[in-house]
């Protein structure tokens, strides 16, 4: 019964993010470890510390003869006034291309609180036809601090797709429904655990991720995501990350349990920090 009343979302579901965030199941609203966080929350880039740029390229559903591909470029420019963030993501399949452009800024307001805002353009093209729509995102990041000697906690909140209509007719122009995300990240010695709860279209999605440092610069990642109201599109993720001087290399493998017969998803990412 639940499946029958689900809104069908066939666009802008898989854009944004990158290999790092995907490996953690998309539990990234509180993450300050990567520039990819701009796709999940405008605020964490305020605490990113150094300017960064990264790029991800991926193949979706490798079991298809013509697998869709996904590409994204993410950047954060740190200055004394705050952090400027620019992102571009595209998903291409035969006869279909959707793209998201993101522009925003973030700033530390108090020692514990950071705020970020973004404007985002969603657009799709199919043959001669195309649609565009602009929305806004607001996010906060709150540093709860050290709750034990070795455990640091931060919380986040995101209100996304502001200005979007919720009706089905609105989606035809490229809109996504408004959503609210609450996130938490726990950082320990060489380990990071994250959980995000996102409410969109009257249903909750839970994303969880875990990262552990295997050896100097080499990180192993695990993630999972699913909707609470039903069991549609549960997915599991694993990944690796490696830091070499100013370079960052990431890989993520994703498998949907419900669309598993369509094959796995692979994402590769490369980044630079200065």
């Amino acid at each position: 019964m639940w499946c029958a009343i689900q809104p069908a979302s066939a666009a802008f579901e898989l854009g944004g993010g990158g290999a790092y965030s995907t490996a953690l199941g998309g539990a990234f609203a509180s993450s300050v470890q990567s520039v990819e966080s701009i796709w999940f929350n405008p605020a964490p880039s305020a605490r990113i510390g150094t300017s960064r740029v990264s790029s991800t390229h991926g193949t979706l559903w490798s079991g298809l003869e013509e697998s869709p591909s996904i590409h994204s470029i993410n950047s954060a420019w740190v200055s004394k006034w705050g952090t400027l963030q620019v992102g571009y993501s595209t998903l291409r399949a035969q006869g279909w291309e959707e793209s998201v452009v993101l522009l925003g800024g973030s700033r530390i307001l108090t020692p514990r609180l950071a705020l970020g805002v973004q404007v985002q353009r969603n657009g799709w093209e199919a043959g001669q036809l195309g649609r565009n729509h602009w929305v806004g995102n607001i996010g906060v990041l709150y540093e709860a601090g050290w709750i034990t000697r070795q455990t640091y906690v931060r919380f986040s909140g995101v209100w996304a797709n502001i200005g979007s209509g919720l009706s089905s007719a609105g989606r035809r122009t490229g809109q996504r429904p408004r959503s609210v995300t609450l996130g938490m990240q726990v950082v320990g010695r060489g380990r990071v655990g994250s959980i995000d709860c996102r409410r969109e279209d009257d249903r909750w999605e839970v994303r969880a991720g875990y990262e552990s440092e295997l050896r100097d610069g080499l990180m192993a990642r695990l993630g999972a995501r699913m909707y609470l109201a039903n069991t549609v599109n549960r997915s599991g993720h694993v990944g690796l990350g490696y830091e070499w001087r100013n370079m960052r290399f990431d890989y993520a493998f994703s498998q949907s349990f419900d669309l598993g017969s369509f094959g796995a998803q692979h994402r590769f990412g490369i980044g630079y920090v200065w």
Partner: protein
Amino acid sequence: MSMEFVRVSRDVGLELETLPPDKNVALGEVAKNDFGQRVPLTDGDISLVASEWISNSPNVFGRYFTVDLGRNRAITRVRVRPGQTALNQPEYYVRGYRVEAALANEADIWRLLAEERNNLNLLIDTQADSTWRVLSDGMPISRTGQQVRFTITRQDRSNWVALGDIEVYAEGFEHRGNAMLQWDFDEPVNWGRVRWIAEEAEGTAFRLYAKNYDDIREWATLYPMVKNTLFSGVEPSRGFEMRGELTTEDPFTSPRWLQLEVEYDLRLVAEDAKGAVTPVRVNKGQETEIAYVIHLEINDSNYGVDRLFLDGSSIAVQQILVDGVPLRKEGDYSFSTSDEKEYTEIHLTATNRIDRDATVEVRGQGLFLNESNTVALRVGSADQERADGYLNWQNGREDIAGSWTVKAEGLPGQLLSAVDLSHRQFSPFEDGLLEFVFVVSNLNNPTDVVLSIYDLNGNRVRILRQNGGARQYTLRWDGMNEDRRTVDPGLYLYEIEVQGSGEKGRRRGTCVVAY
């Protein structure tokens, strides 16, 4: 009428016979020991070695034997006969035992039927033990189960054990029965529609089968009839047989067959209609020129033929000749085929109705995708349709044995071809329907072919299905979900599956909805 395991019930119909109290329902069923090996304890025999189980060891505590009765039975008694060795050496008996049963859908939950800790009899009869003394009106209360387990719980000192047979007695209905009916006519007739009334409670079923007297096929090889459909055997015929089959999985419920109605026409469409297809060998998966030759015997008492039905092949008809004279494509005839079934239906105009002996040749292009393809002939009449209110096709016969069969050789060997989409970008408002066109080959039995469409969240948006054999399929999606709402623009995933054929019968891809 002849009946087997069926009885007349209260003068209103037929139902399954009740089980006689002395019928051993375990006889011939599968018995296994606690290692899952088959043991000869349900063969009705207790003779030495071949038909008994002997422990070859005094260490038999906890050993058990399971009999699968094939379906739930209302068990009233379990008897365990000693093996011949035990009859010769009575010390090879079972001192203590437990008998349990498990339902078909609860295979791991064992319910106690009988238990005796102090047995002194070679023949174990649970009706005599302490547990089965639960009686109602002097009869043991039945316990339902499909699996019966006999466990040895106690043994006398160092002796072995020899078991001969496990017998299970039950009450309720037989699980299967049938009634056979036969009709004789003075003249050959053309069968019409067949209807029946049957009560089929949950877990029960009624099936009706029909064939001619001279049809030598086994009943088990026939497909059951569908209500209100026509007979599929050769017509006309002077004699028919029908077999009504009643089955139940519930020991206390029987289906009931209440009524049967058969329509028939004494006036035939043709005295006889024979057909043959050529060539009999073609290349699989390639459009082939074929000719279907029909010999018609028609006299003044017949309706005459102006309808032809070639069942089993969609033929793109190019020419029809009657006694060698071609009919005009425009004005003399028309033909139709279907996306959903393999057949060709030809309508001759009234002026071209065939009312005398004639040879008709249908020429056209055919596509054969099975190794063996049968193209059956039916003939019909518009006059008959007007007279009776429905078209009662008269089934033809093979000109010579095997002349309806086309053997297809070579490629394609695959089950499911690549899928062609009618539109890469599909708008439900402008294009109407998105067609998924593909070919299923090498499929001998009708099977469901299912198209599932998913959004990127993994929601199944729509499911469409057709049932059929090896042929070209066209499944059409109107761009709506199961709630009859037009889906949002976007990229969708689809999967086509020939059910029951595993990974080789699946194709997946993407389609685009844009408007």
